[in-house]
């Protein structure tokens, strides 16, 4: 292909036509996917794309590494159960873990707002140090920038993680088959609802904490017990379980069917969701993951997760079927069912 033909091919694959960037483009749902696939991928990857996973594999010099990056913007900086510094480490390590890799090294970039109290920054650096120590990962490089007051919410952190692939684990949506089981590591919605309540706009209180944690020990236990049976894993952060499973359904062309009665949701999260008209399946998590495993490995996988500290509440929530193709269906507790789509924009509470 000559230069101008290549340029034309790129131009024709740009499908993003929204005139401006809105908050929805960062919310992890449909709009985010449209932006990435319609603008970033055509211009930066020549239009070719593998299924967009949580981390990329790069091979050179005879070895393969997994690499991923993530930015953390969260208000408030501290919340019950965690803070931005801890999230910035765990989030990136978890993206590596669900790609079947163990984090080995991390680099971090800080964007600080003029006027940020040093004590606040120090607390976040300490939180990062503790999370790095827990995940057994070294911070090997970093960068700091300061922007004018009003140009950032206190601080933003970007982290990039490099990991070594776990043996026997191959994560690929195209390997998913009809009959595969869908496993979930624990209760959903804790993080998103904790943040919503911590912002204090709602005058709601609940005894609830973010689930932020490093999930690598759980993934490693799963890999030891069911390595060859693991087809696919994701951590359901922004957009929640519904969004990652819709992406899976789309990428593998099959249907994901969930049993509502099997979905682990704490009463506090259910209560807040009922009040605000939100679906726990759309709420963000920071310490859980969803795995699709071959049916013959499902029992061993569940046992391994449940006998690992922090995995006691792991459960099977559904299975892969041929229909509804490319969609997620939830069977309700009384013989009914409903389609659950990806999140559209940010979850907005319903009042009237």
């Amino acid at each position, binding site marked *: 292909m000559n230069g101008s033909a290549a340029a034309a091919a790129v131009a024709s694959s740009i499908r993003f036509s929204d005139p401006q960037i809105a908050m929805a483009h960062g919310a992890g749902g449909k709009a985010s996917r449209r932006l990435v696939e319609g603008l970033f991928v055509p211009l930066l990857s020549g239009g070719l794309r593998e299924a967009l996973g949580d981390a990329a594999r790069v091979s050179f010099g005879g070895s393969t590494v997994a690499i991923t990056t993530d930015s953390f913007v969260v208000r408030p900086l501290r919340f019950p159960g965690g803070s931005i510094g801890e999230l910035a480490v765990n989030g990136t390590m978890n993206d590596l873990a669900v790609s079947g890799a163990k984090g080995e090294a991390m680099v971090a970039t800080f964007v600080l707002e003029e006027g940020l109290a040093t004590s606040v920054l120090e607390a976040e650096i300490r939180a990062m140090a503790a999370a790095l120590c827990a995940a057994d990962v070294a911070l090997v490089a970093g960068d700091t920038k300061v922007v004018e007051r009003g140009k950032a919410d206190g601080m933003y952190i970007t982290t990039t993680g490099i990991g070594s692939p776990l043996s026997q684990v191959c994560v690929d949506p195209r390997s998913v088959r009809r009959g595969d089981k869908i496993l979930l590591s624990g209760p959903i919605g804790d993080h998103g609802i904790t943040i919503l309540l911590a912002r204090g706009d709602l005058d709601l209180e609940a005894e609830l904490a973010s689930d932020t944690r490093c999930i690598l020990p759980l993934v490693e236990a799963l890999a030891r017990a069911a390595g060859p049976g693991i087809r696919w894993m994701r951590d359901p952060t922004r957009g929640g379980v519904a969004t990652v499973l819709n992406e899976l359904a789309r990428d593998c062309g099959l249907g994901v069917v969930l049993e509502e009665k099997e979905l682990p949701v704490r009463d506090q999260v259910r209560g807040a969701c009922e009040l605000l008209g939100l679906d726990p399946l759309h709420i963000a998590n920071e310490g859980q993951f969803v795995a699709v495993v071959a049916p013959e490995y499902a029992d061993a996988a569940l046992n391994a997760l449940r006998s690992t500290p922090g995995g006691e509440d792991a459960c099977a929530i559904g299975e892969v*079927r041929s*229909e509804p193709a490319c969609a997620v269906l939830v069977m309700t507790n*009384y013989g*009914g069912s*409903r*389609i659950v789509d990806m999140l559209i924009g940010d979850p907005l*509470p*319903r009042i*009237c």
Partner: protein
Amino acid sequence: MRFVDEFRDPELIAKASDEIRRLSDPNRHYRFMEVCGGHTHAIYRFGLKDILPSNIELIHGPGCPVCVLPMGRIDDGLAVAKDANVVFTAFGDMMRVPGTHGSPLEHKARGVDVRIVYSPADALQLARRNPDKQIMFFAIGFETTAPSTALTLMRAKAEGVKNFSVFCNHVTIVPGIRAILDSPDMRLDAFIGPGHVSTVIGCRPYEWIARTENKPVVTSGFEPLDLLQSIVMLLRQLKAGEAKVENQYKRVVPWEGNRAALKVLAEVFQLRPYFEWRGLGFISQSALKLRDEYAEWDAERRYPIPGTRVTDPKAAQCGEVLKGVLKPAQCKLFGNKCTPEHPIGALMVSSEGSCAAYYNYEHRKAAAMASSAGSAA
């Protein structure tokens, strides 16, 4: 979870569904309208249509305040925010509703000061904390949310908060139901009466439907068992040849309504002579405006209002869907030009709108059900 789980008990639900089968005449087609958007949402969310016999058809009514708000009102509200440099506050429900030049959220992305509030009291608080800014609350909702707007206005007046105003779009439910019943292509057997609205207005305002239209009404709660029990009560009335108003939602709805709430409504609001409902047209005495005593806090009197009128795109058949003449999927735009992400008609915007509920929960389901039946066999 109390007050929720007992109304989602699979055993009781199976019993209610058996009772519905027993009471319904298989040779008869039933058309019940659930008035309230909250009911529409619950019906899809819990997959209740799958449990009901196929000869019971649920028609989605006009009770979604976001859905019946004409686009011109959104344009007017946003024009005030832009031209008069006013902070536009509204419930999250409004934020993605398209105006001619985009939704409130899109205006926010362009620099208009748009903020989500969880109650009108939050908007008033914003005004107290920002005396140098003008705060406008874009009020929507039926009698459910109108009392909180009224109370907020009473407080603003008592405290003399001058930088606060209300752009009032509150509507009243009964004229909407009347318009539906007056529509010539409408054939309904009974109504599942609104739940939240009735906590304020009670059940008496529906008595004319039973008396003069000879149609049963059962005011219903929002849990699966509430809705199924309401259908049982409607079928019992139809079987006995009766038409009366019954209250299934007694744990929340008092027959006479909430007197305190009705009193504040009467103190702050008066009926407009007429108001436009999206999809239904102008309906007389169907909406509220601020009384003269509250003129100072009335955004429509404080700011120049363009008075925008927008006709819905011809291809969109929102009116027919709103009246239950067409099912959402029968509209030409459904699912192709009009989706929850890019709504053209308002019924696609709110998750309580029948098109959005249908799209979110029902779309593509038929194939799935066929397949799971096949794999079970």
